[in-house]
């Protein structure tokens, strides 16, 4: 993993955080989904390199949105 995390400070990279197991459960229940229905993110994605991601974890992304101001997105980590 790269020592420098400068790219994370870039204005175009939104905030990525990992969901805890409990939060993960709650999310899956809320939308009535399994990991299969969730959008994906590569385990090697530079934007989450600092989170030490594992397969099947869920990443929460908080983005700026031109319509809503702020929007929350979730992605399941995949390895390939």
């Amino acid at each position, binding site marked *: 993993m790269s020592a420098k995390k400068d790219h994370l400070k870039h204005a175009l990279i939104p905030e990525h955080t990992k969901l805890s197991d409990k939060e993960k459960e709650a999310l899956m229940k*809320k*939308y*009535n*989904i399994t*990991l*299969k*229905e*969730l*959008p994906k993110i590569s385990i090697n994605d530079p934007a989450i390199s600092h989170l030490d991601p594992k397969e099947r974890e869920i990443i929460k992304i908080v983005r700026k*949105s031109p*319509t*809503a101001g702020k*929007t*929350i*997105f*979730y992605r399941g980590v995949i390895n390939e």
Partner: protein
Amino acid sequence: MEEIRPTYKKIHSITFGVMSPKFIKEMASAKIVTPELYDKEGYPVVGGLMDVRLGVIDPGLKCKTCGHKLKECPGHFGHIELARPVIHIKFVKEILDLLRSTCRSCGRILVPSDKIKKHVGELEKIGAELGLAERRKRVAEIMVSLKTITKCPHCKESQLKIIIEKPTTYIEDDKRLSPIEIRTRLERIPDDDLEVFGMNPKAVRPEWMVLTVLGIPPVTMRPSITLESGERSEDDLTHKLGDIVRINQRLFENINAGAPEIIIEDLWDLLQYHVTTFFDNEVAQLPPARHRSGEPLKTITARIKSKEGRIRHNLAGKRTNFSARTVISPDPKLNINEVGVPQVIAMKLTVPERLTEWNMKYLKEFIQRGAETYPGANYILRPDGKRKKITDETKEQLLEELQPGFIVERHLMNGDIALFNRQPSLHRMSMMCHRVRVLPGLTFRLNPAVCAPYNADFDGDEMNLHIPQTEEARAEAEILMEVQTQLISPRYGLSIIGCNQDAISGNYLLTRFMDIPREQAIDLLASVGITEFKKLPHKKIVSGKEVFSVIIPDNFDFDGVSRSVPSDNPDHTVKIRNGQLLSGVMDKSNLGEGSGLLLRNIHKQYGRDEMVEILGRIYRLGIEVLLKYGFTAKFADADLSEASTVQINKVIEEAYVDVNNMIKEYKEGNLELLPGRSMKETLELRILERLNKARNEAGKIIADNADQRSDTMTMVRSGARGNLINLAQMGACVGQQALRGERINKGFNRRTISAFKKDDLGPEAHGFIKSGFNKGLRPHEMFFMAMTGRDSLMDTALRTPKSGYLYRRLANALQDIKVEYDYTVRDAAGKIVQFAYGEDSMDVSKSEGGKINVKQIINSVMEK
């Protein structure tokens, strides 16, 4: 009557596979052995390609296999035994992959035994988690990795390189593999190994890809046509099958006679060719099989693929009855939700009405009038399903047998429901439901206000009309698709239907300048359809604003701006209180399509039906004003006064001087560079900038000096049509012609046109047009204009089909994505695309220009 209950069964799964020779033989009801079709008497030969066991295509005959008659018998397959196996052209690639990935001697996959299990497990997992597409991708990856293995991990046999000589020849180490060899190799691959290739051995055994038995399609899918002369003309497929059977028989004979190997090989190749072209006559390396006329045969692949194929033409592209198409023309007297239908069309299109005791008399009158007099009827449907045409001869008899339960197909009448559509249907507003209005003439008539959603004009556009035939369809069209329901665009939350052209000019003149006698005002309003005039003040002279106020609802309040009025004028702000237009002018920013909140608020406050009513009145009012008081855009409107001509010439002269100075600086090398630009680029940019400035200044002079009350200026100012640049180009100067955002730089060696000196960098040598259209262009200017004209023509001609295809792909990709009840956006598989629709879960069509007016909501709540 006994009720017939249909049986419903749920499909559990579908397996796709390759037909095995055994399956083909079991499926076949006849073995075909002779290429002859008919005997001397014209009867089909038994064992020929038109064998009666393959189905019937002649009326009156019964099928030898199923005993049904024409149209009832679905047709039955036959088969032929091929003398030698041939490759199936559609599996060439799969066969190559299999040959390369398996051992040439033992037939095992080139993967060590212990790893096979691992691969299979991995594929199962990918299939379950990510779907079949991903699984196939992985299979392809495995195959690629096996290509380079040179030694079989099972029997240690060294592997040779197999290449393919298109279309159907496999070569291993310079030696040709015959289909027989290929087939034996494929046979050796064990079932267990096939799973790694993603094949289900029950459905696909690889050796089935090499044909030993060929299925013969039933005659019902290749019917022959009897010409007027009594001659029979056979289908392309029958011709092709004839070739196959003939060569096959020759091959059999030669083999049995022990003919030399070369002859057999040649015939074998020929058989391969015929079987290949039978499946696909457009294989790249093969000359297509042709008719005697030289036209290529249409074989199986051609029937299925491409735009004219079964899928896009017959399955995806349906044709409809009860529809009409003709040229459109405008009619502002129609309501916005009406469509004018020519009487001739109204007499062809019908609406089915079920006969009951109560409407018997009413419907009988239609039948009485028959098909030839206008509101009549064309057909009667009896409960037994028989369809009877109404003619003068049958009329009497039909009237007698008429009883409840019959259906009468009567002519289209005023108020009937119709769907109206213009291609390309890019929008849901491209197909809306209108009320029929039967009119004389031969064109569809529509209110010009609905041109915007259809993107229609009247330069020869044609549109389609469909008449829904069931109660359900009519209800659905009315509730979901009627013009009223489509007023607010789901794209930006404003009204897409508004006033245009004359309707804007008229309302602008009325609300800005006019004061008219009360009688005239009543005249105007009456022609719009108003009968109640108590809102009009009892004065001798009423203002245009007061006239306009009559057609807006009494309790309507609104605040807005008129862009046509400068901000220092009190008329700049639109103020409506209690349905009175107190200040402000109606122009494009208030009445136009997709602009301003005036129409949006009317919609919100009074609902769609009322809005259509009001909009129709506003529209007609505008037009009536112009009709009564006259409106002419004349040539002289673009004329310039002496003084402004001098002024404009001065502006252009100054620009020329500036440009020449820049060129001088450039030649001396003193030009100040723009960041990141070379000297030449800097010069070009600055010249362009300076000349555009000159053109704008000229435009401004015109705008200031032109007669503000001229009708051309009225159109420009109200936003109805035209802009200042158009005016400047006519009156003063056309301006710089640009190709790809630069001045014109092409042409001859070191110059654009031979009228100039070489290396002339001046404005006129590079496409600046000093003259205006009013005066006329000079010769070199005309050529520059023609250059940009041709360029933009080409551009549109090339861009339209490209963007059309782009849109088609986009629409197909997005077609089953929808917003679920929890506001997530999901595809057909339930995968989430967005967690909240549009990230803010807002229905744009319920917003005002994409926003929600919170203030207004608070106010309305506080009032209560």
